[in-house]
């Protein structure tokens, strides 16, 4: 097991320098550069820096290495400086706000800031600290700790030789023995020609995902369905690819014992925020107000849009389209995890998973907020083998523009594009509309029109009926999610008062997860409708060729009324579709 020290060793794993002499296959990757520590201005190919093995370069083209411990100050004024656009900044993590907006690589001290920055899932205990995103959770724990064993949900990434790569809790290196055990179990079954799916023991479930040479494991007592946990592992794998691309596999081909942890150094925050999105989760921001992370995208396979008037969204789309025509692969304007507008070049479309992973990556990395950035990222559903380049700029505290390109040297072009876009957005009041929409929130079940004559209600005019809060919507409707299959988009209502308590919301999230898994059974699904009543809810699900509706009602609701209400919800959503959905983005179709 390698200690942290080995990371700074220039060449711990590749004693044979000739490996590095392999010509880069630029055609695949364009160029990706790794800025060498303390050598920000050095433009030479990194030789034996130990950060990525030779094969990784071969796959990735040129990679600019950013080493731990030395913020690289390639500033914008000197585009030739290799520390500039193109560094794998988030790889080295979180960190202090950098003085220069252009500085691209910097150090994050691994785990050292963790002490003050942990947060428990509400399940675990009630401690909620202000920012989970900065460090490793409980780095002092290992598999011998009682507290570690009692964690509700573990995630592990390891190599097929048993090297730990990531663990949600505890220090990876301390978990080497545990990791070897996992590897032994998985490999035993692999060697017999089979593949492990899951192990169940009481309320614990151990779910495996094998992506040779990477193994992913989730150990959970949250009683989520297997399909849900497996999908979470798929997303974690996708998040890893987003940071590294699949070419990391070559490292293992060359050296099965390869230690990958340095490659993911500093990305704890990215994974932990993704993991939080899997569960119902509360954290308190610096403000005491509790926020709920409720991200059904993690199981719905769809993204959601910020509600906006049609003309506002059109204005945003028009300017994005403008830049897309100038060599931008995707232009994406988002507010938190909600899409304001998305434009892709011809034929290219963005998979909802890629959007989820990309927005998670951006939002969980503090540095994106403090500077405009140009970062290599991979969209695993688009092409898991190559890096794209993401120009990211936060227009306000929650709203950010992402421009994706294949070319590593278009930072200045994209910066210009962003300036143009920002100007238009400000001038056409799009940004203020976005902020207003965030404040207004989304659909409220209380506003569900009673009569079809009220259909033309616009989102921006408050409804009278919202005054009847306290009982939810008509016929005991508490909540709904509507997914447009053609658009790959969903809309989810705000929580009505009967489910304002966090434990109710958590129950609802879990119930939806189970309902989704039940409806989308691999063998015979998807089913057409499902009605489900237990002590907590009445749930109704309705799947057609065009949409999926998931609705939650008071458990005592009348069946006939609930069905009627679902029909009305569908009508309502269709009436509002211009405001709650984004049209024109080509649906994901390959």
């Amino acid at each position, binding site marked *: 097991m390698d200690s942290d020290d080995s990371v700074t060793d220039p060449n711990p794993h590749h004693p044979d320098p000739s490996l590095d002499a392999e010509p880069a296959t630029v055609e695949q990757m364009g160029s990706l550069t790794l800025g060498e520590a303390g050598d920000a201005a050095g433009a030479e190919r990194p030789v034996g820096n130990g950060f990525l093995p030779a094969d990784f370069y071969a796959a990735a083209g040129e990679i600019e290495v950013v080493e731990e411990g030395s913020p690289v100050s390639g500033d914008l004024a000197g585009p030739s400086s290799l520390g500039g656009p193109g560094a794998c900044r988030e790889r080295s993590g979180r960190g202090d706000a950098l003085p220069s907006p252009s500085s691209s690589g910097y150090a994050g001290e691994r785990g050292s800031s963790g002490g003050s920055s942990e947060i428990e899932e509400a399940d675990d205990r009630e401690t909620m600290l202000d920012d989970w995103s900065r460090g490793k959770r409980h780095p002092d724990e290992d*598999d011998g700790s009682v507290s570690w064993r009692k964690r509700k949900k573990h995630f592990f990434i390891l190599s097929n030789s048993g090297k730990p790569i990531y663990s949600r809790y505890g220090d990876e290196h301390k978990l080497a023995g545990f990791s070897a055990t996992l590897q032994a179990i998985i490999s035993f*079954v692999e060697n017999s020609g089979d593949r492990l799916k*899951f192990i169940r*023991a009481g309320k614990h479930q151990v779910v495996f995902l094998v992506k040779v040479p990477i193994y992913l494991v989730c150990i959970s007592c949250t009683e989520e369905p297997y399909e849900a946990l497996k999908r979470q592992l798929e997303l974690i794998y996708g998040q890893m690819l987003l940071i590294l691309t699949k070419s990391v596999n070559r490292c293992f081909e060359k050296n099965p014992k390869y230690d990958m942890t340095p490659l993911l150094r500093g990305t704890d925050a990215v994974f932990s925020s993704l993991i939080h999105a899997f569960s119902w989760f509360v954290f308190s921001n610096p403000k005491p107000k509790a926020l709920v992370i409720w991200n059904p995208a993690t199981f719905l396979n769809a993204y959601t849009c910020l509600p906006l008037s049609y003309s506002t969204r059109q204005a945003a789309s028009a300017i994005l389209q403008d830049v897309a025509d100038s060599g931008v692969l995707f232009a994406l304007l988002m507010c938190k995890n909600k899409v304001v507008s998305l434009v892709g070049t011809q034929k290219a479309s963005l998979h909802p998973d890629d959007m989820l992973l990309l927005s998670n990556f951006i939002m969980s990395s503090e540095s994106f907020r403090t500077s405009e950035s140009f970062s290599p990222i991979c969209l695993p559903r688009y092409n898991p083998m190559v890096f794209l380049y993401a120009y990211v700029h936060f227009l306000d505290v929650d709203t950010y523009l992402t421009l994706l390109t294949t070319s590593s040297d278009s930072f200045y072009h994209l910066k210009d594009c962003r300036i143009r876009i920002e100007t238009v957005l400000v001038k056409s009041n799009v940004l203020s509309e976005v902020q207003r929409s965030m404040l207004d929130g989304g659909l409220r079940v209380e506003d569900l029109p009673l009569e079809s004559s009220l259909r033309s209600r616009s989102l921006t005019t408050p409804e009278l009926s919202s005054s009847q809060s306290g009982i939810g919507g008509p016929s005991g409707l508490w909540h709904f999610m509507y997914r447009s299959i053609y658009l790959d988009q969903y809309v989810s209502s705000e929580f009505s008062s009967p489910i304002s308590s966090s434990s109710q919301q958590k129950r609802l999230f879990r119930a939806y997860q189970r309902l989704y898994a039940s409806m989308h059974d691999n063998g015979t699904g998807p*089913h057409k409708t499902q*009605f489900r009543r237990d002590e907590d809810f009445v749930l109704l699900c309705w799947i057609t060729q065009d949409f999926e509706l998931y609705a939650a009602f008071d458990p005592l609701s009348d069946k006939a009324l609930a069905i009627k209400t679902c029909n009305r919800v569908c009508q309502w959503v269709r009436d509002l579709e211009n405001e709650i959905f984004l049209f024109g983005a080509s649906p994901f179709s390959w």
Partner: protein
Amino acid sequence: MGLPAMAANEGIQLCVFDSRRGHQEGQELDKILFFFPSDFPYSVQLSVVGLSEGIITFTRIFSPDAACEVIEEERHSHVFYQAEPDIWMVMIVEKNKDNESDWRCDALIDVLKEAHSLFTMFNGSLQALLDKQPSGELARSRLYTFINDYLSDFYVGKKIQVPSFRDCLKERRTVQMLTVSREVAIEVQSLATVIGTSSLGSIACKSLILFQDLLVATTLSPGDTANMFTYAVLRLTPHALSSNTSSWSYLRRGVSGSSITASSGLLNSRSSPEEYHHGSHDSSMGEQSNRYHMPRPLQRDNWSKGKDGFLVCDIQLNVGGLVYLAPVVWLQQSEEHMYLCIYQHRSLTIIILIPVCSQTDGEQGIALVKKQLLENASEKIVHVEEKLSRGWGGENAYHVSGYRYLLVDTDKSISRTSPPGKVMTLAKDSLFTLNKLREEVDLEKTRANREKPDQEKNLEICIRAKNNSWIIAKITQGRELYMVLEKANETLLYASDAVEKFSDRYCDGAFSLD
């Protein structure tokens, strides 16, 4: 786990091991008390046990109170049952490519539970056998014959077929009752009373009365009733005795009548001891079987009907100078050993259990009980049988037109189902979906038990499947109803209406909500 060495072999492995044994290197085989198929190389057997033990240990890291229950692989399912504190039963089932091999893990675990409780009924606990004879040979030889005899019922053709999604409208380890009119019920009751008192002095016998393959009356606890009922339907009832007759009872495991016939023939040939002992784990097993008396209550054709109407068991042999009169069973509830004495009149099977302790002279005592029964009760028996036969609706007596259902009373271990012949008319997809739904409900039930152990679970799920059938599960007041409605109207209200009607009519309204 796909075992490389067994690719072409049986699609099932069943293993019983004792986690306290065989800890020393080189002694690992001592762990294994039973392994099916017995001709598997030791190395493979050890690797199965090794993986199982490894996973049990591993899962205990996180879940100290509930160790591994299921390992699901792409091509195999492993189910675990901790039969006794240190005794584990593990079954590994291979998934076929023909898409027929979708099962419910709880249904597989029920097979292990049933095997173990039947074993215990005739042999006592494995722990007791191991205590009696620490080398484990006694336990091994008992398990060997018993489980192989038990598995013989799962053969369809040459292959063992475990319960699959096609069996999702059945519930193992429950009793099927015959519904009788009040008048008949009183007569049955009085017959049971006569049997109970017709014994020796003050010691009361217990009894089960079956008509065809259905239970009519019992004086045993629900658990013991379920075990004894299972055994009776497997080996004692007229259907079981004439194993060539095709049976409608679900306890005959075959898929259809014809395959049962085919498999029965095969089973008979299989039950020859030579074949069982071939390739046995312990090469001295043959001798062992002579040294230790090995009753084989589950051996086919063990029972036959004597002229006096009592069933005779081949076990009643003179072994080593001891005369074994009748098989002895162990009742879990009352913790008593009982002699088994079975009387059969046409479709009526009466199982009398005589406490062993009461018999200073077993043979005489049993003879006395038999005599008393014939003297005191034979008229009643004939009378009751006639009445029951007259009221008997035949195989499809419990068919409800338009419905395919399973009704389980979990508290009483009773179930009622649509006749298997009717269930067979359902589309594969409907059964498939119901099987999945039951799997989901199984998980919901265990979760509810964990979270709110003292609260009754209430749950209702109606699914409109892709093939337009309605798949319904409803749990309330300790009862479970599973239902498939094909060719039904598309509205949910229609489906719930249909459930209400069924519930009102057949379940005393237990599943009616309003």
